[in-house]
């Protein structure tokens, strides 16, 4: 796998490079800003770009905009955006119309090295990864009791958040320390409450979740 990293903080960028190289992932370019990212992508044709939302020169949402532009130029490129923020608008904008090969994770998820590497692989392979906290934010509107999501139990929300991260039933069961059967029951209940058609395919389940998230935008 060939990866480009766009991150302005040297300490974090070097840490990421070291982590990826230790795990035999080829880091073909490291850049510090949005225009640099677009140049590196044009030059190296990587499989995946890891992009910080906040990049110079504006230090606002420059990285996000560059990531969206990079996707527009190379639709096959996987983009994993790392953000300091639980900002649902950014996540929704990144998802746009096409969920394949998209990831939005909070920055600190890099600390859970195995899960992070797993997320990289899934995004590069065209999967979708959405941070569970961003999902939780979308699922529980502030103060409101008017959302269909409020009908979900805390356990069901947890399952849904893990589903949005693209995890399999087995992985969800392991993570929640329950049986896969119990997870299956939760999922059936979630789909019933959200009036979404249930199916067994992991990726289609994520799409269903994302479709719901986009509707709720």
């Amino acid at each position, binding site marked *: 796998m060939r990866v480009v990293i766009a991150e302005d*903080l040297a300490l974090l960028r070097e840490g990421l490079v070291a982590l990826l190289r230790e795990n035999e992932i080829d880091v073909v370019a490291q850049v510090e800003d949005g225009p640099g990212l677009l140049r590196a992508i044009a030059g190296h044709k990587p499989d995946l770009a890891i992009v910080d939302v906040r990049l110079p020169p504006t230090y606002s949402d420059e990285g996000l905009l560059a990531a969206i532009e990079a996707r527009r130029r190379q639709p096959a490129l996987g983009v994993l955006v790392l953000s300091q923020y639980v900002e649902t608008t950014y996540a929704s904008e990144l998802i746009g119309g096409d969920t394949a090969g998209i990831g939005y994770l909070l*920055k600190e998820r890099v600390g859970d090295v195995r899960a992070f590497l797993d997320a990289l692989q899934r995004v590069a392979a065209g999967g979708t990864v959405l941070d569970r906290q961003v999902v939780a934010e979308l699922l529980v509107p502030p103060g409101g009791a008017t959302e269909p999501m409020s009908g979900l139990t805390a356990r069901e929300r947890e399952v849904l958040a893990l589903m949005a991260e693209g995890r399999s039933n087995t992985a969800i069961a392991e993570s929640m320390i329950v049986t896969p059967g119990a997870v299956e029951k939760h999922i059936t209940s979630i789909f019933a409450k959200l009036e979404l058609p249930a199916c067994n395919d992991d990726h289609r389940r994520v799409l269903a979740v994302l479709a719901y998230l986009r509707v709720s935008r």
Partner: protein
Amino acid sequence: MSGRARLPIDLSQPPRAAGARRWMPALAAGLSIGEYARSLVRRLAFLSAVLVAAIWALDGQGYFWPAWAWLGLGDLVLLDFSAGWAWRQPRGAVRRVACVWALVGVAAVILVFTWLLTWLLAGAQTFWPAWALLGLATSGSAYSLIALQDRVLVAHGRRALRARIDMLTRTRRQAVDAQAAELRRIERDLHDGAQARLVALTLQLGRAELRVQEQPEIRGLILDAQREAHHAIAELRDLARGIVPPLLADRGLVAAVESLAARYGLGTSIEADTHGSLAPAVESAAYFVIAEALTNTAKHACAKRSWISLTDGQRMLVVIVGDDGLGGADPSGSGLAGLRARVEALDGSLHIDSPDGDGTLLEARLPCG
């Protein structure tokens, strides 16, 4: 008689009736006793003037002594007019000064006309009233200065006060703007400094953890450290978000409000008519007003409809948040009171209209010139 009597005397108060109702009905027509007396005096003065002239004519003419009588009678009428003028001035120092000048004026006229008559009747002489006139003018001016000194000082005081208020308003606004800018700088530093370093730290800890799979004790310690770092990152994130939500800092008020409204899922309609960029303090205040209003709507209102309007014009940002819910919001509740303080710190105003059962309308006006 009546026609002639009206001419020289009664300019201010024309007779109100003719014929038999000539004198007494004046009272019935609404004149006060004072006014009636004054009009009587004027008529008597005119009659006397005519009478004196007639006596002079019948008495074989010669030295025109009636001129002195006319001077005396004329002074009486002049005194009446000038006193009337002085009395119409505003009460207090101004009226007192007017009275003094009315007397000075009458005295000056007496002096000048006396000199004029002696000059006409007895031949040329020096203008002897000059020193008396100078004395009158000096004492009148001195009295005016003393009497009106207060007013001059008060006017000066008012100007000074206004200048001070302007200065305080300006510096308070500068302080609020500086504070808002400083808060945003702190927020940025939290993200780009401490938080980013903590993220780098968790990454290093994660890499270390991979290397000690076989040593559960060390691995446990590393995972504990990582958990602490995660807590610290989450706390910093909440802190930064409370200062200024990222979308507000990055995209401005309208985008931030749209995202906020979407998150509440109230189907809020948003109308925004804003131009150019707003000061950070104004933006933040408007944002938190809307956030609080939407929270209240979502929690308490059971509203079917909710709307937000942002209008920026005439150096004033007007924020209106309304719903058609239950109403009855308490403007002195802690949330709304906090908003009021925030808005008033910007010299703005916050108005809440929330009758029981008839929706809630919140209007914040924020100066942004």
